[in-house]
């Protein structure tokens, strides 16, 4: 096998070092090279997915140290699914931001490209690593890229948002490290499979305290209430492709980490309830906050938090159908929210301020972008025949299977709130009387391609979900089959 999981990590790292040099040769290199790297990642994903479908999961060890002693990269159908999703979305976001420099006021394009690439690569690393300390390292990589990107515009607000993110990210790192330390002292291992194997021997109190540190730390990354104070500011101040990345990639990685820790490493009762309740609270508060937002990007940020809450609810339910729905929703959310951020970015670009108010009648200026935004909004709310419908459908089905009737009603009521604010924006875009004469920036070709491909995905999956469902199904099975995971990793060596 020529292509191994390590290519995911190696290629971006090499490129990151090479870009400053290549920029000297040709100034466009900084923009082209990340694309090549991300595209390579997509190829890697496809090859690996094909491989694991045929031969089962892959566990690659680095530097010759066998697991559990060495660092290993694991591609199961689950991680493979997420990694593919992240890399594809990453590539599309790059494609969208290809001509990004023209919008820059401060900062340098090469730093932007490198950080963006590193953020995506780090997220992939979080997903495929099998080692808990390595997880921490990757989270730090993502975090540092994210802090810098948040403050990329070097404006007052940007700096403030970046600092907030940094502050809270610091808490996350500290707690995560604390958790890792506790676990290491108790199990003497950093390999997740081995930790999971040895977990039954750990004293209950230690286990729980370690779990709480993990929950708080990773909850910050996964934007769980009340740990998500950084998110609205970061989303709204970062460059738009970065916001899209936050929504589609970073949050996915955060949720992955949380789920991996909760599902695989620990065997504590009550975590599921915790996830469900906190997920619901996050969702409720986020949507409530979103309804009174005046800034489009902030609104989308709160909406993202709400969607992540729904994902957590689904993971909290924990049945196979629920996990399936959650994974489906993660994919849908990544796609749809990227689309919304991309289109929303063009709206903002065409108006003076980022206010929703100034979107009145922008349909006439940007018909195609408006159309895509409307499509995305309808899909995100969960209207058929768009892909969002199916994920919500399965999550609610699974909740019903467990007879959580009030949860279902709650989720649906929150959906009504969601629908209200999205349709208000859609109504403004299409039907309100336009005011003023904002400058008209038409979308560039690459952006149109990126956005259209996302929209196409939404419609196709919406009408014929069978295209993607087998993959998600196997991913869900892989996640839930904990013993198989442990055995495979520990016996493969």
């Amino acid at each position, binding site marked *: 096998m020529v292509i191994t999981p390590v290519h995911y990590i190696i290629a971006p790292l090499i490129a990151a070092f090479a870009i400053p040099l290549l920029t000297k040769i040709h100034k466009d290199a900084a923009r082209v090279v990340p694309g090549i790297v991300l595209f390579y990642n997509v190829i890697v994903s496809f090859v690996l997915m094909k491989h694991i479908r045929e031969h089962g999961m892959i566990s690659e060890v680095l530097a010759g140290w066998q697991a559990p002693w060495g660092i290993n990269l694991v591609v199961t159908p689950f991680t493979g699914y997420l990694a593919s999703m992240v890399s594809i979305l990453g590539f599309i976001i790059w494609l969208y931001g290809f001509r990004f420099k023209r919008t820059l006021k401060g900062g340098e394009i090469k730093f932007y490209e490198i950080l963006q690439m590193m953020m995506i690569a780090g997220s992939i690393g979080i997903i495929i690593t099998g080692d808990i300390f390595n997880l921490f390292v990757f989270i730090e990589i993502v975090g540092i890229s994210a802090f810098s990107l948040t403050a990329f515009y070097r404006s007052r607000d940007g700096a*403030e948002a970046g600092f907030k993110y940094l*502050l809270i990210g610091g808490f996350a790192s500290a707690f995560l490290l604390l958790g890792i330390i506790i676990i290491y002292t108790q199990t003497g291992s950093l390999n997740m499979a081995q930790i999971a194997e040895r977990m039954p021997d750990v004293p209950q109190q230690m286990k729980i305290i370690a779990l709480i540190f993990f929950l*708080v730390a990773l909850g910050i990354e996964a934007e769980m209430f009340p740990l998500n104070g950084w998110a609205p500011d970061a989303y709204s101040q970062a460059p738009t492709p970065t916001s899209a990345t936050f929504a589609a990639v970073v949050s996915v990685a955060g949720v992955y980490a949380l789920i991996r820790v909760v599902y695989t490493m620990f065997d504590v009762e009550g975590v599921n309830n915790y996830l469900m309740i906190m997920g619901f609270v996050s969702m409720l508060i986020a949507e*409530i*906050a979103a309804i009174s937002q005046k800034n489009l990007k902030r609104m989308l940020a709160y909406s993202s938090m709400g969607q992540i809450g729904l994902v957590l609810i689904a993971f909290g339910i924990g049945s196979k159908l629920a996990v399936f729905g959650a994974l489906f929703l993660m994919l849908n959310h990544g796609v749809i929210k990227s689309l919304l951020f991309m289109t929303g970015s063009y709206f903002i670009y065409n108006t003076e301020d980022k206010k929703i108010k100034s979107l009145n009648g922008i349909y006439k200026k940007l018909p195609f972008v408006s159309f895509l935004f409307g499509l995305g909004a309808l899909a995100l709310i969960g209207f058929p025949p768009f892909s969002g419908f199916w994920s919500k459908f399965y999550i609610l089905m699974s909740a019903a299977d467990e007879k959580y009737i009030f949860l*279902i009603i709650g989720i649906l009521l929150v959906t*009504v709130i969601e629908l209200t604010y999205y349709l208000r924006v859609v109504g403004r875009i299409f039907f309100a009387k336009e005011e003023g004469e904002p400058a008209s920036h038409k979308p560039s070709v690459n952006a149109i391609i990126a956005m259209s491909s996302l929209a196409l995905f939404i419609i196709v999956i919406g009408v014929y979900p069978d295209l993607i469902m087998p993959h998600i199904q196997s991913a869900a099975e892989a996640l839930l089959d904990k013993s198989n995971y442990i055995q495979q990793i520990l016996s493969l060596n």
Partner: protein
Amino acid sequence: MEIIAIILLILLVGSFLTYFVDSFNKKWTGTTAFLIVLITAGIFFTKIKSGYQFNFQLAGLDLQWGLTDYSYYFVYIILGLSVLALLYSIKYMEGKARLGYFYGSFILTVLGMLGVVISQDFVSLFFFWEIMTWASFLLVIYNAYYKIKTKGIKYMIFSAVGAYAMFTAIVFIHVHYDTLLISEAIAKGAFNFEQYIYIPIFLLLGFGIKAAVMPFHVWAPPAYAKSPMSFTTIFSGAMSKMGVFGIGLVFTSFYLSSNPENFFWVRTILGWMGGITAVMGTIYALIQTDAKKLLAYSSVAQLGYIIVGLSTGTQLGVMAALYLAVIHAVFKGALFMVAGAVEKQAGTTDMTQISGLIRKMPYTFVVALVSIIALAGVPPLGGFVGKWLLYEALITESNNYILVVVVFFSSTAAFMYSYRFLFGLFLGQEEKETEHVKEAPATMIIPMIILAIIATVAGAYPGLIFEPAAKAMQAIGFQDVTWQMSSLTNVWGDTTDLFLIAMLIFAVFIISFVFLTLKGLKKTRYVGTKDISTSGELPKEWENLTFQLDFFKPFERAAAPLYKMDMNKIWKDLGKNLEAFFGFFRKIYTGNGQTYALYIVIFLVVLLLFRDVLFS
């Protein structure tokens, strides 16, 4: 490929095709849409017969599409009315902006409605229901440039609440009865009000909101009035019938049930809700000054009758409901078309602005007259049959004597707004402002006249509608539905012969008309409306002799307590309070990094303190 899938595909592709035709050539957009739906209707009625079924799998679910006699009955309404509405629409929408958008959404709505009635499993039902809802939402906000925040959104919120209630019911049917097929759910007794009462209640809530039942009707009047009239025709005529369709489906188990006592409360409550809907719709209709709004409230009231009919559960009652569903689609479709024609030709439908159009738009007036007579339920037109069936059902079969008075009150008060509509638009003073008005173009008149003819024929030969209605009733659980071609019989054996009535009225009409016309023919003069006896005063040009404002003020004063119950205000207050409440929660996100850090610490501490409670 299955023929039904082809039909849906034609509509789907047609929707996009229309959109693109519009950017190509604006003139042909309407015609394209009309042809697409016409072809669809042609294929449907020739190729698909009742009893057709199509099973397939999607997304791991067993789905089933098909047609019973019951759903076929509604297909008549949907496709028939859509074809006429689109024919009408060609000229009506001419010269307006975003035609592609309009027709695309229009066809999508038709697709959604068709999908709803052909679905025989809940997932497809919900799927198409939602398509129908959002596509119609796009059309509702098509005109509402200013009130987007309240009017259109109100419709969507109510629809969404209804749809999600339905969805909740669907998932629970899946959980409790392990089926998604409607027929199986009915067979397993999912709607029996014995166990899991919330399932049928949620379903009824979902359908009831679409059928604009009492406390949830507030979305309907503005939505009906603000949409383009050619769309309101099917919005009020056909789409509201989807709610009726659903209620009928849910009640199938009631009609089939061996112990109907289970259903006593639900049918009583629903019947009363329908009755109150009828009354409130009527009394609000008669204080409107905008003809479109008047018709919209009237639609709400008429839907109330249908709900009452369904809730009786007797043969005559359900027959009344189904008959009214068709006849309401017919006359209300025609009336909305009339309102649209007036709007198109005179620029507004505000009855305080225009009056006296009868000489300018004679054909439109005749259609309006016929439809209004049908609406008011006065013999010999089709509306009377529905009213008769409803009253007889309530009196003779379901013994609901007070409800029948409520319904009767509503339908008597309906005379008032019926008159108001005709008087406001067509009769009264001929003002100078409307001098330029001309008769609407032929493609707008023809569909109206077709509908008017149907309403007339249905008065003498209601059997033409009874026949499919009887079949439909047999499909939802009635046995041996009896009907006659042109007479009505109740269970006590009292008969009313409609054909004779029609003939008698026609004969007297001819005799007295000829007498009155021929007598002093040459010495009878027709004069304008300025030539009236105003105590000898010569009306000046600027003098306003039009009586339009506060038309029914005495009635308003007499019925003042009824007007105090304003549902609209209650909902509005609820919305405002909720938003204020949400604003309070929003303050959690202070935007201060220190606060956020504090949250994290507190959260950690709380988790650590309550770790034994939370985890074990």
